[in-house]
């Protein structure tokens, strides 16, 4: 569903070079690379915030830069590394805001929107949190709720920028398993960046590896690469 060929990505200077990438629904992709190598820039380019320097990015056969903002908001969502909570905003209200792309100019929510929110709440087991304020949640719960909002947005392409960076071991696994399950059940195309190599190898379908010298993104099947090979490619100066 996502196709990138001969494309250069970066703010002003070239940060990354993509020769050929084809990402499919139902698969979980983990983006791995050194700090500052351009993982976040890559994700920001995929949601259309930063234009590609050379080449194009095709989402469902159409350039992502030709979509209108509203159309794109129904196709791609991005979950940032940290969600700190918002005062006076309950989890239920927070999730309902994920329906904004589908509401009319006054933001009226319909029965179907509420149904979808409740569905996601059940899917992720957030029933006991739905009436709480987002500021009252633990770090793990906050991250879970942020992912839930992306699911409520019902985009097929879901991007997550280091979703497990600040979580303990147990919460990390919970989040990753949830992401994996949703990817398979809803036929999503999920990309998340991570520094946790063992977990990436275990949970991902494919790895997107960034070499800091050639600045190239390489796609490999998670089952066909060892940790040593991965380290050698992403962190060659180690």
């Amino acid at each position, binding site marked *: 569903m996502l196709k990138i060929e001969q494309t250069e990505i970066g703010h002003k200077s070239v940060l990354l070079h993509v020769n050929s990438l084809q990402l499919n629904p139902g698969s979980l992709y983990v983006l791995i690379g050194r700090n500052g190598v351009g993982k976040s820039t890559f994700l920001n380019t995929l*949601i259309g*915030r930063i234009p590609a320097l050379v080449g194009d990015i095709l989402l469902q056969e159409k350039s992502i830069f030709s979509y209108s*903002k*509203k*159309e*794109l*908001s*129904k196709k*791609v*969502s*991005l979950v*940032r590394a940290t969600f700190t909570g*918002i*005062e*006076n*905003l*309950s989890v239920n*209200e*927070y999730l309902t*805001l*994920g329906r*904004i*792309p589908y*509401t009319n*100019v*006054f*933001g009226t929510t319909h029965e179907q929107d509420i149904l979808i929110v409740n569905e996601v709440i059940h899917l992720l087991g957030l029933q006991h949190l739905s009436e709480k*304020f987002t500021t009252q949640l633990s770090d793990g719960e906050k991250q879970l709720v942020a992912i839930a909002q992306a699911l409520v*947005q019902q985009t097929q392409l879901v991007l997550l920028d280091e979703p497990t960076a600040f979580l303990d071991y147990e919460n990390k696994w919970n989040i990753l398993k949830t992401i994996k399950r949703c990817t398979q059940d809803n036929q999503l195309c999920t990309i998340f960046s991570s520094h946790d190599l063992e977990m990436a190898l275990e949970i991902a379908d494919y790895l997107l590896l960034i070499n800091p010298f050639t600045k190239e993104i390489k796609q490999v099947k998670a089952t066909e690469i060892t940790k040593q090979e991965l380290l050698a490619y992403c962190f060659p100066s180690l």
Partner: protein
Amino acid sequence: MKVRLYKRFTFCLGLLLVILSFVHLQSGEVAISYSDAWNALFSFDEQNQSQVIFRELRLPRTGIALLAGAGLSIAGLLMQTFFNNPLAGPSILGVSTGSSLFVAISLMSGLTLFTSTFGIITAAVIGAFIYSLLLLVFSSFVRSNVSLLIIGIMLGSFTNSIIQMIQAASDVNALKSFTIWGFGSLQQVNYNQLLPIFICFMLAVGMLLFLVKPLNSYVLGEDRAAQLGINTKRVKTMLIICVAVFTGLITAYCGPIAFVGLAVPNIVKLLYKTCNHWYLLIASALVGSLLLLICDLIILNLESYIQLPLNSITSLFGAPVVIWILLKNNMHAKN
């Protein structure tokens, strides 16, 4: 269930506002009968003293108190959501002062076009618009809430000194009226001005309807709002126009009223505990009107002993609210 509670509470606020409006209309040395009040509007008799008092003094004063309270509170709420800063407000960030500067310039110019009702409203709105724009530019450079606040206060002081220079150059009569205006006052609007002010006000309210959805998404941050398909450029323009009309309109006729725009939305958020701007906007308008009516009732009832300026009363409760917010945020950060 929660929604029903909100609706009931809002209804009660509205009811209280209606009652207080009648009390406010009846406050003053001369008692006015209902028939006089009715006739003052629909079959006005210039010879009847109580009709003249009602039409020229009472009604404009109550009317502008309602509009000023609502307008400033809405402007404050818009700025707070947009800057993601509970300390934002039209008076504290210098938007009211910017508006004052342009009113002062247009008044001192002495040209009839500029000193007409239309000219003053236009000048005040343009002033507020330019200062909101300045804030928008500054806000993209600073991250901290307090930095923006300090920039706003500096902007206000800077502008105030320019206003004082203009005052120093003007004659005694102009100086006196400008000084009284600067204290904040609800007594300078007459019957004929009330309608144009009301129409401008309602135009801005009309625009506001299209801002509710963007405002709700801005709670998540501008970045996420854009991701959810909100056209942030258009929202920014509309928002600044709304803030400028509400602030400019009120400042032109009542002077720079302090703290209402800052305090009221915070009180409303405390009462409602929601981020839904349908409730926040309506409740801010109601509470703002209520608050200004109460402040003015205090002034009216003390009138025979002392002439209190409006700003002295609004600051009396407004300044503690700011301190309270800062303390609350600090305690939040510590935990």
